[in-house]
């Protein structure tokens, strides 16, 4: 089995769909679109099994040379190791489920083939990203997923808003990519290669811990990661990216692409370990992001934007984990998050479709009875997101992070407090959303009930969101470490400082309580005393605060004022190219000289004679001047 097949199958299918966009029937498109991902998933599973059985460090396939110039050499090398297997597995499986869902969701879309072409292209690029053995190939996938994200956010191209959102997403992530590119240059400069294993291996010889160079490299890599993963300060694009079709949001902006940053940092963890400053920065970014995004999620009115902010917030948890050195915890949260967030998005999508493309939370409500199946899967998703203790996957993964943010070597009380605050917020916004959608009065008529192709993936994901947590249980609750063991060959185990069971208990209890109290607050706010709460929320100060949070802490405004407006203003000002003025004024000067001289050609004989005399005077004057003066 060739690992190369895994990304190749989606690529080929994307190509097929692109070329055959006019001729292929809807069914053919569905078969190619979903089937290829399914096939890819199947191959992935086979290879994973082979890998697990083989006991090797990694399966590496060299699928051809790419660029070789002056000592720089890269190829299409694909790598399957423990980390890639996890990501590949999640991408293909969740991807397949989302594809199946999308075949139902996008049923009436005229550009059906284009949609699947882009989706498959995305999966291919994402798989390349996580399987790349060298950073250039990773960059290839990295940019490829960016492209697909762009294409899919702007899928409904007729609405300019969608295009703006798409463009914003691309440009903002590109800022991060630029940082990452510079990191690549630096890595090449010092290690002479871009192969990841070689870099990781040699890095410890080249740099001592805390070397400014490696700190820079790590920070720049982090820059790439925050761009792609929508972390502070480049988080602003993700909420807008919700303009795309819901399966896209589920696949790209929840489950897979946005976690590429997590993957990148996990993949290059050795570098981060060498650069403690960068690692702390990662944790700080994660902590701040998760809190800020939590507040923003709390006040959104658009169902998808709530989820988007929640995604930002959850990835903040992962970054926090990475920053604390809890590599496998981050990856674990990625897995569970992929499941429940995909589930939530798709369920939300189903709700939206059911309500005739209504996304405003306040126009929903009372859907519990109307959409029974969705209600239940939504509940599972929400529970997992809010980390309801014991039964949800989200609990185990997030709890691990909360605990490690305090106890790990890179942990800190402040991180821990932020994480706990995040837990409270998560509970609040998740269930605010849930209650708003399913409780209260029916506000919009339900016109369409999702079919099987949409529901079955939801059920599967709901199941996964529940059981996936049991592969990794904390000390206090059974102590299963299947997942971290699996990753051990790639990612070192976290070094825990305060290995105290009592404290861990306290932490867990606290987070559980906070999550539940968050739910309680949400219940009070939405179901129990909506009137009183809303009166309270209508207070002017709070009103402003709500707006502020709702606008994502006005980061957009900040960037607009700092970067976008000056750039646009400068470029508009200079549309005619100031430098050109230099040349046109030169031409004008020539014209002026012409005009002046042309005056002397008056046609008057006396004038011409005067010219001769002037010439004579001038010649003699020059003579006298040169000789005597």
């Amino acid at each position, binding site marked *: 089995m060739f690992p190369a097949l895994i990304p190749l199958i989606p690529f080929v299918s994307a190509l097929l769909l692109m070329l055959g966009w006019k001729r292929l029937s809807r069914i053919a498109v569905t078969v190619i679109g979903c089937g290829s991902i399914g096939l890819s998933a199947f191959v992935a599973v086979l290879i994973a099994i082979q890998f697990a059985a083989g006991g090797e460090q990694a399966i590496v396939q060299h699928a051809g040379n790419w660029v070789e110039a002056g000592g720089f050499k890269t190829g299409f090398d694909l790598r399957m190791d423990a980390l890639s297997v996890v990501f590949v597995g999640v991408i293909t499986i969740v991807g397949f489920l989302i594809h199946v869902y999308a075949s139902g969701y996008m049923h009436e879309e005229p550009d059906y083939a284009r949609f699947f072409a882009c989706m498959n292209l995305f999966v291919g690029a994402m798989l390349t990203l996580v399987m790349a053995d060298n950073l250039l190939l990773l960059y290839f996938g990295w940019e490829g997923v960016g492209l697909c994200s762009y294409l899919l956010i702007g899928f409904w191209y007729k609405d300019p808003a969608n295009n703006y959102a798409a463009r914003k997403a691309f440009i903002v992530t590109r800022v991060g990519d630029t940082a990452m590119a510079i990191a690549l240059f630096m890595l090449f400069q010092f290690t002479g290669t871009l192969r990841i294993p070689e870099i990781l291996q040699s890095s410890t010889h080249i740099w001592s811990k805390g070397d400014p160079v490696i700190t820079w490299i790590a920070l720049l890599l982090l820059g790439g990661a925050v761009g792609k993963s929508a972390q502070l300060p480049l988080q602003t694009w993700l909420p807008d990216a919700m303009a795309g079709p819901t399966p896209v949001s589920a696949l790209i902006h929840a489950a897979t692409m946005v976690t590429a940053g997590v993957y990148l940092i996990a993949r290059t963890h050795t570098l981060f370990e060498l650069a403690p400053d960068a690692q702390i920065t990662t944790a700080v970014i994660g902590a701040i992001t998760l809190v800020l995004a939590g507040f923003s999620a709390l006040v959104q009115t658009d169902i998808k934007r709530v989820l988007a902010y929640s995604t930002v917030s959850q990835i903040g948890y992962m970054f926090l984990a990475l920053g604390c050195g809890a590599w496998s915890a981050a990856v674990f949260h990625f897995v569970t998050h992929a499941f429940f967030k995909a589930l939530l998005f798709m369920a939300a999508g189903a709700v939206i479709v059911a309500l005739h493309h209504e996304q405003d939370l306040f126009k929903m409500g009372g859907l519990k009875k109307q959409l029974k199946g969705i209600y239940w899967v939504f509940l599972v998703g929400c529970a997992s997101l809010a980390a309801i203790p014991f039964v949800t996957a989200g609990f185990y993964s997030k709890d691990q992070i909360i605990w490690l943010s305090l106890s790990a070597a890179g942990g800190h009380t402040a991180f821990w407090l932020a994480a706990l605050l995040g837990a409270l917020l998560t509970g609040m916004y998740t269930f605010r959303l849930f209650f708003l959608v399913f409780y209260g009065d029916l506000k919009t008529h339900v016109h369409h009930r999702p079919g099987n192709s949409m529901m079955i993936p939801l059920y599967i994901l709901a199941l996964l969101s529940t059981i996936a947590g049991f592969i990794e249980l904390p000390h206090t609750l059974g102590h299963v470490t299947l997942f971290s063991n699996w990753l051990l060959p790639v990612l070192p185990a976290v070094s825990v400082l305060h290995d105290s069971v009592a404290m861990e208990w306290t932490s867990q209890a606290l987070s559980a309580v906070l999550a539940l109290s968050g739910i309680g607050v949400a219940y009070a706010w939405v179901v129990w005393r909506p009137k009183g709460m809303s009166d309270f929320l209508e207070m002017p100060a709070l009103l402003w605060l709500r707006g502020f949070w709702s606008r994502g802490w006005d980061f957009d405004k900040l960037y607009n004022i700092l970067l976008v407006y000056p750039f646009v203003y400068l470029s508009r000002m200079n549309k005619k190219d100031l430098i050109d003025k230099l040349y046109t004024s030169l031409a004008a000067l020539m014209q002026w000289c012409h005009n002046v001289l042309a005056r002397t050609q008056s046609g*008057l*004989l*006396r004038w011409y*004679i005067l010219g001769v*005399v002037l010439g004579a005077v001038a010649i003699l004057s020059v003579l006298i001047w040169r000789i005597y003066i």
Partner: protein
Amino acid sequence: MNVHPTTAGMLLAGVLFVLGLISILVRRDIIFMLLSVEVMLNAAGLAFVVASSHWGTADGQVMFIFILAMAAAEVSVGLALILQLYHQLKTLDSDEAAKMNG
């Protein structure tokens, strides 16, 4: 006062030359201009003869004769041209002969 004869002659020629030049510059009547040129040519001829006397060679005087010939030819063609111009413009004003410019 010991005046250098050559210098003195040259100065005289120079003065006459410049007087002719002034005339040609300030006059608008074409015949006057022609006249002034003759003055200048004559001054140049004088300069040649003065130089000739300085060196005691005949070259300068031969040149003077040629200048005379040239002046004659000049005047004859010039007058013919002026006649034509007069027929055309009804005036001898040189400023009228400024149809071409720019």
